[in-house]
């Protein structure tokens, strides 16, 4: 008896998680779905068709990808040297430095956002791609830093002594010996950054001034009203994208663990 209750409870929770997604999935395929029917009367693909034919949609994909890639590249430039440096640091300041770098994870985004926008107004970085890129970097840097820091910690410091003793200079040795060993962490960091960049709504809206359209921003007109079905379709596409990225992330994470 206890076991049945236990499984009902757990299943209910899982159903609760899946419920909103399934609802919108069905909605996105429905043409007519009237109260109080549980299942739509008419099913169609036309909403998805509409989407793929809209110029806005293509622009949004382009923007999302370009911004995402720029954020990833800039993150790499900042994180790879610093994660490596901090992992090889023996000083007592290590904990403080790490705290400073990962602080943005735990400070609420709205606080960062209001002040960042304010800041950008002064510097005239609003309504600009670069402003949006920076706004996306702030929440994603800590995650990439943690992933790469943990990756570098696993690489034996004696590897550096070895390639130095072979006559290879530090830069070259780093790129040929150390970096390939954190390959997985680098890829995971990229995926995570991309995921976070896609998720950004408020920052893109505020800093981009509404002029820069990303996939998440496509949902904006549907907040107040508008064709719920197309909105649902956008939502489903977006969650498919996120699920795909999560799947990639898991695959690479597990693949790395297998080879360890």
């Amino acid at each position, binding site marked *: 008896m206890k076991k049945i209750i236990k499984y009902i409870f757990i299943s209910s929770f899982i159903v609760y998680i899946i419920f909103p997604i399934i609802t919108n999935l069905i909605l996105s395929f429905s043409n007519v779905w009237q109260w109080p029917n549980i299942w739509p009367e008419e099913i169609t693909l036309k909403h998805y068709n509409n989407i793929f034919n809209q110029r806005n949609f293509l622009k949004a994909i382009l923007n999302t990808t370009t911004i995402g890639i720029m954020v990833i590249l800039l993150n790499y430039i900042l994180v790879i040297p610093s994660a490596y440096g901090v992992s090889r640091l023996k000083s007592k300041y290590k904990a403080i430095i790490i705290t400073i770098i990962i602080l943005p994870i735990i400070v609420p985004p709205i606080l960062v956002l209001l002040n960042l926008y304010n800041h950008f107004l002064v510097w005239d970085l609003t309504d600009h791609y670069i402003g949006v890129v920076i706004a996306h970097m702030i929440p994603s840097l800590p995650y990439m830093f943690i992933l790469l820091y943990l990756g570098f910690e696993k690489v034996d410091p004696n590897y550096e002594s070895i390639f*130095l003793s072979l006559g290879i200079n530090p830069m070259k040795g780093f790129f040929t010996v150390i970096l390939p060993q954190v390959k997985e962490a680098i890829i995971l960091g990229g995926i995570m950054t991309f995921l976070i960049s896609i998720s950004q709504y408020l920052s893109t809206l505020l800093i981009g001034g509404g002029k820069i359209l990303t996939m998440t921003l496509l949902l904006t007109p549907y907040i107040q009203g508008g064709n719920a079905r197309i909105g649902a379709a956008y939502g489903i596409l977006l969650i498919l994208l996120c699920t795909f990225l999560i799947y990639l992330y898991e695959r690479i994470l597990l693949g790395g663990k297998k080879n360890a």
Partner: protein
Amino acid sequence: MLEMHQLNYSINDFNLRIENFEVKNNNIHSLLGNSGAGKSTLLNLIAGHLYPSKGDILLNSKSILHLKPNKRKIALIFQNSLLFPHMNVYENIGYALKAKKKSQMEIQNKVTLWLKRMNLMGYGKRMPHELSGGEKKRVAIARALITDPKLILMDEPLNGLDPKLRDEMINLIKTIQKETSIAILYITHDFEEALKISDTISVIKDGKIIHSGIPKELLFNPVDLSIIDFFTYYNKKKVTISNHKFNLYNNVIHSNKDGDFCCILPPQGILLSFGNSGVIIEKHYLKYGNIYLINHGEETLYAFSHEHFEKNDCVDFKIQSEFIRYKKEK
């Protein structure tokens, strides 16, 4: 040839002070020491990761202190082989040559030569995780030696290998050394290993070199008695000398001392012959003879002999009192 003069290095409470130290060419020179004696510090100083506060380090009569670690032409072999996991055996060995932009032909020739030398023919395409411990070590050595270094630093390279593999590796290292006439500084805490592999042995303790010489000397005539802390083969016994006489292993010994002493008898101070005072329970092979562990009643003692005995042989032993050293008991 590596030379160190008046080398000083301090960190926290530890002081390293080396007056003179030499590793000659065509020589395997072991540095024996316990943990904390200063072995790693010395290694880092030679390799260039640490800078001394005073003194000089010379390689082939030229000072290398101002050289960065990657310019010193000193090869490093660690206990952990640390092969590059993302490269196969061929790429690991040829790594240094490829990075220095040598020609494909040269790389291929040299790598093949070293694969042959280290008995690794056919292993070229294997990845490090597919290799056994011994195979990994051989790749690591080939990777280091292919660059024609002027000195090889080995930091407890054979730690953790089973005895048979260890002996194989020791022979391999000695063969390679003879072929290349290179100088090797071999750091270890295992004195049996040191005895087997070295041409010269130095002992380091608390940051100072307390003995330097050929293995036989270390075994039989150490400069500093504190060395015997290392060696299981020495016989140590607390005795009370009264009337200038005391009893040692059923032998009466005459001495000009009186009182409580710690009596130290090296293995060559005991002469063995067939008899029935004791039974041989262990036999250790050395280059110049054998060490036997003898059971005598409730005691055990080590004896050295050129003659061959076997386990379970019954022996008599005679103590040569001129070999006995006395240490005051506190």
